[in-house]
């Protein structure tokens, strides 16, 4: 499998390139964006991210955990104060609320990392530093028999630069190491 890389300066051209590649039957298209451009993300059939489920599950666990902690420990070691019930729900709501937010946020963070496959030790394709700055990159996986088609599509869509990268190519930059 060969990777064809097109570098673009305009978001409109990226939209055109993605649409043309899809029409030509290329399915494995990865776009690199310095900003989350809504037009490009829309054309890429953006589905709702599953991160929201992590938020929901984290929040529910936090809420249940907050009530379990407060009720459980109060029953385990009763502290009678001010003639108040040992299991006093109104003050326990404060703890359960804070834990709902805390675990909801931590769940969101974990969900984001898991689905984005971060942290990443190595840049898997020929990443270009300009893609973090002011250029868009369209990377297309091409079977051997279609290597000549993708560069033409990218060029016609308005790519500033088109290049081919061999199978298993790593980044031309020093490897990411941490």
């Amino acid at each position, binding site marked *: 499998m060969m990777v064809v890389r097109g570098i673009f*300066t*305009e*978001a409109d051209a990226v939209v055109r390139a993605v649409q043309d590649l899809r029409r030509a039957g290329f399915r494995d298209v*990865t*776009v*690199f*964006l*310095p*900003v*989350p451009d809504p037009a*490009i*993300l829309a054309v*890429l059939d*953006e589905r709702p*991210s599953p*991160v*929201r489920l992590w*938020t929901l599950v984290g*929040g529910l666990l936090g809420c249940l955990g907050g009530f379990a*902690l*407060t009720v459980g*420990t*109060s029953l*385990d*070691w009763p*502290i009678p*104060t001010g003639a*108040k019930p040992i299991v*006093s729900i109104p*003050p*326990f709501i*404060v*703890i359960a*609320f*804070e*834990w709902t*937010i*805390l675990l*909801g*946020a931590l769940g*969101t*963070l974990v*969900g*984001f*990392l898991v*689905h*984005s496959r*971060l*942290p*990443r*030790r*190595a840049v898997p394709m020929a990443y270009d*530093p300009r*893609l*973090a*700055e*002011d250029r868009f990159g369209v990377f297309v996986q091409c079977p051997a028999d279609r290597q000549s088609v993708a560069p033409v599509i990218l060029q016609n869509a308005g790519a500033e630069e088109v290049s081919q990268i061999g199978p298993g190519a790593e980044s031309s930059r020093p490897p*990411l*190491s*941490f």
Partner: protein
Amino acid sequence: MAAYGRIHVDVLRALAPPGRGYYAALALVGAVLAWALYAWSVQLARGLGVAGYRGSVQWAVYITNFVFWIGIAHSGTLISAILYLFRAHWRAAISRTSEAMTVFAVMTAGLFPIIHLGRPWYFYWLIPYPNQRGLWVNFRSPLIWDVFAVGTYFTVSAVFLYVGLIPDLAAVRERTTGWRRRMYQFLSLGWQGTQEEWRHYRSAYLFLAALATPLVVSVHSVVSWDFAMALVPGWHSTIFAPYFVAGAIFSGLAMVLTLTIPLRRFLGLEDYITDRHLENVAKLTVVTSLIVTYAYGCEFFMAWYSGNAFEQAVFRERALGTYAPLFWMMVFCNSVIPLMLLARRVRTNVRALWVIALLVNVGMWLERFVIITGSLSFDYEPWYWADAVYQPRWVEYAITAGSFAWFFLWFLLFVKHFPAIPMAEVKERLTP
């Protein structure tokens, strides 16, 4: 040069090796911090008696600082999370510095309940954990709610700040070399900006903002309940939660102005943090000032209308008694001075804005002091009244100055090592 590229150049220039002025500022905050550490060591060695506590006044400057710094944190979340949900796009340029301010202010606030303890090495007893004593904390105490609220606020704010930084750290990574490059590689987690990464990132950022919004309201409500749950006249009031939340946002907005006005000049970011941003923050400041003024009025009205003699006595004492000069200075700084911001000419005058913001900071610190110390010194027990005139001693002054130094130290380190402008978010509003 394309607009996207220009942002890079400008923001990275702000990260360039600093000049002598920066090191002078670091040396100053370092010296003040050392003085504060010495004062704290004296307090640890000789006990809380070196502070000015007396009679019924056992919460004073340290708890004032705690409430003040938690309040400062709040407007950072308002700007970075609440205005994000409201799609107020102008917030982008100042959101990074505001969110960083939130994290550092909570880090500062969190020190004070510990400094205020007689035996601070036992602070972990506030945390519920299985232990051989078989003891658990009392979840009906507002002080334990504080532990959960402040701990959650710090964690969520730090996560929100970090997630927002990831794409920018990757952008800085591509322009740096050597150990800095390795550091940004590590911190950016290998971010590349693919459509999948952005899809999950946008969702995570939205949900973090949505979680931070009710959190910010809850945190200062919980802090206010430290007082409102007690039976002390002047504290025991149902308006405390909204009153404290409004005051927190008011003081925080003033701190945003205090920090960003010099910051944009020293880092050369006037093209990004413009006079329009400052004017918008000034508008929010005057709105919150009016809410706080309304709350001041409500407190006096409720004391009068309730017919409660103790409540009335405390409020008479507040306006006419020992701490009356501080009370009237508070009213002047928080209710009178901000009215000048109703005039556009003042809002658009950066120097005037900075001076007003400083005065609001002073006024809001005094508000916390007047509520806490003023109410405690005029408690139910008359035999304390003559003796309970609290005056801070040098230890409290040093530790209070040290809290500002600690806050500014983190802020100075942050703006020289991390992008002070959210590049990706500002770019979204431009064409490449």
